[in-house]
């Protein structure tokens, strides 16, 4: 694979990363604190790509020591000791496997994958978390409508492990997407908790009782609801988990948030 091709690959990678950063789309895949490393990555990729395209005199990467030859990790002249002397012109070799770096770019551009939604939520285990070993703090202050904004993760932890705590009986404001479950008389308000990137995402869900029945899956809603101590333990789920049931007070369909995951 010639130097210019390598340079082209790096440049298009840089352009795609630049797009991910500038449009905010990176938040669909990785956590927000990766922004600075991603900016650095974009700049380095663009620079390396440009340098590779314009420089016309370069080091060759060649084997000084001929190897055993049957173990080609790189496609090029790994076995030919004369390669070092034979070239009057320069070219830099990199193995063809580097072309695979285009695969995630093409996947991103062609498929434009959406953030994890109801399909992944229904397949993964819901509310997989362990009892916190430290004290849960006070609730954040309520907003003007008297509801406390909470993450779904926080809501689930408090419902399962702090049922006598300050959240029970208090209206809370939650944002999540709808994942329906036909067996229940309400939908599951869901959101993924992410530590690093979408690959480690786990879903947090609560059942919204008394809510609308016409909401489609993956609709984003903002809900004000109240936990009164009722937790469902569906069959087949481990004892350590459960689905808190919240009584709905108000619902509003919203646009998908810029940052679909919770951290």
């Amino acid at each position, binding site marked *: 694979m010639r130097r210019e*091709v*390598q340079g082209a690959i*790096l*440049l*298009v990678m840089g352009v*795609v*990363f630049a797009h991910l950063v500038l449009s905010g789309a990176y938040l*669909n895949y*990785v956590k927000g604190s990766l922004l600075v*490393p*991603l900016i650095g990555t974009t700049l380095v*990729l663009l620079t*390396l790509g440009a340098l590779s395209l314009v420089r016309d005199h370069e*080091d060759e*990467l060649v*084997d000084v*020591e001929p*190897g055993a030859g049957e*173990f080609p*990790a*790189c*496609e090029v*002249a*790994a076995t*030919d000791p*004369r390669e070092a002397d*034979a070239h009057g012109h320069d070219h*830099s070799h*990199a*193995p063809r*496997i*580097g072309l*695979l*770096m*285009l695969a*995630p770019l093409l*996947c*991103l*551009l*062609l*498929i434009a*994958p*959406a*953030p*994890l939604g109801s399909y*992944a939520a229904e397949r993964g*285990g819901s509310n997989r978390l362990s009892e916190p*070993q*430290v004290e849960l703090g006070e609730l954040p202050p309520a907003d003007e409508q008297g509801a406390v904004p909470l993450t779904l993760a926080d809501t689930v932890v408090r419902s399962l492990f702090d049922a006598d705590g300050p959240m029970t009986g208090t209206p809370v404001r939650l944002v999540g997407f709808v994942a329906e479950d036909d067996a229940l008389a309400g939908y599951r308000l869901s959101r993924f908790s992410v*530590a*690093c*990137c*979408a*690959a*480690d995402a*786990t879903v947090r869900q609560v059942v919204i009782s008394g809510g609308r029945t016409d909401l489609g899956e993956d609709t984003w809603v903002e809900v004000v609801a109240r936990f009164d101590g009722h937790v469902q333990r569906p069959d*087949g*789920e*481990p004892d*350590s988990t459960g689905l808190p049931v919240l009584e709905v007070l108000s619902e509003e369909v919203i646009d998908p948030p810029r940052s679909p995951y919770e951290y």
Partner: protein
Amino acid sequence: MASSPSTVSDRVRTPRMVPITATSVVLVVVAAAAFQRVVSPFVDAPPLQTWSTIFVALMIQATPFLLLGVMVSGGLAALVPPAFIARMLPKDPRLAVGAASAAGTLLPGCECGAVPISGRLVSRGAPPAAALAFMLAAPAINPIVLLSTAVAFPGQPEVVVARFAASLVTAVAVGLIWMRIGDDRLLMASLRRIQDRGDRLSTFVATTRHDLLHAGGYLVLGAALAATAQTVVPQRIIDTLAGNVVVAVLTLTVLAILLSICSEADAFVVAGLPQFPMVARLAFMVVGPVVDVKLVAMQAGVFGRPFARRFAPLSLMVSLGAALVFAWWLL
């Protein structure tokens, strides 16, 4: 007698129907962007979308750390004289293994960066066993990973200590064992030596670019495998395997290998599996940064497949053993 350049090139170039040029690369990518709307009704099946999200996410998350690693390896190639590393490390190869393992605390981030650096260390004169020990230690004992573990298991510092100890012991043990039974010819055959010519910037750019595309290509394979495992494995089945201790340990070990979760995040994933015994969860955290499909793919790329075929089972057994020992002792 040297052959003429064109003969050598012809012999070397893999015959291909379509020559790959810079222009064609750019055209393919632009076409993909342009045709997205046309293609989108055919690609909105939820399993495909979920797979793609995870695949793309793994690559976006890994690239900054991979780039950091290849830039360090490029710097090693351009700035560090060949015998320097060998002089820096202790003469006794066993101490060198220990020193290299401890040095793992210095490289923050994902395991993706450690593999190219390790390869470059060897070609700069480090004894392979020490470089391999560094490669195993760096992803598992760096401050970010330890901090994440502490955050995922608040109030349980013994988990952080157990993870640190088991991973460090794994790195040192594998290094020492490799010194005894490992065949260094396997990995030397695949490494490229740098012929120092020209200016440092050229060497740096060429090495960084080469290592990025080389390791990155294999990383793509590993990420695709991991995304498949994550989309295909149903949670219900995993839950039923938590009851028996032996089955639980085996289950989480296999999952650690297949899911290839980044070492900074695996503590959070496993904190969410309280139905599994702690020994199984520690195994997930210790085995994961040492043996997973992403890593094995990259090791096969940088050090060659015959190397990976020996090294992966070795590091798996040692890391699992270390996890069992420290779980029994500390947890």
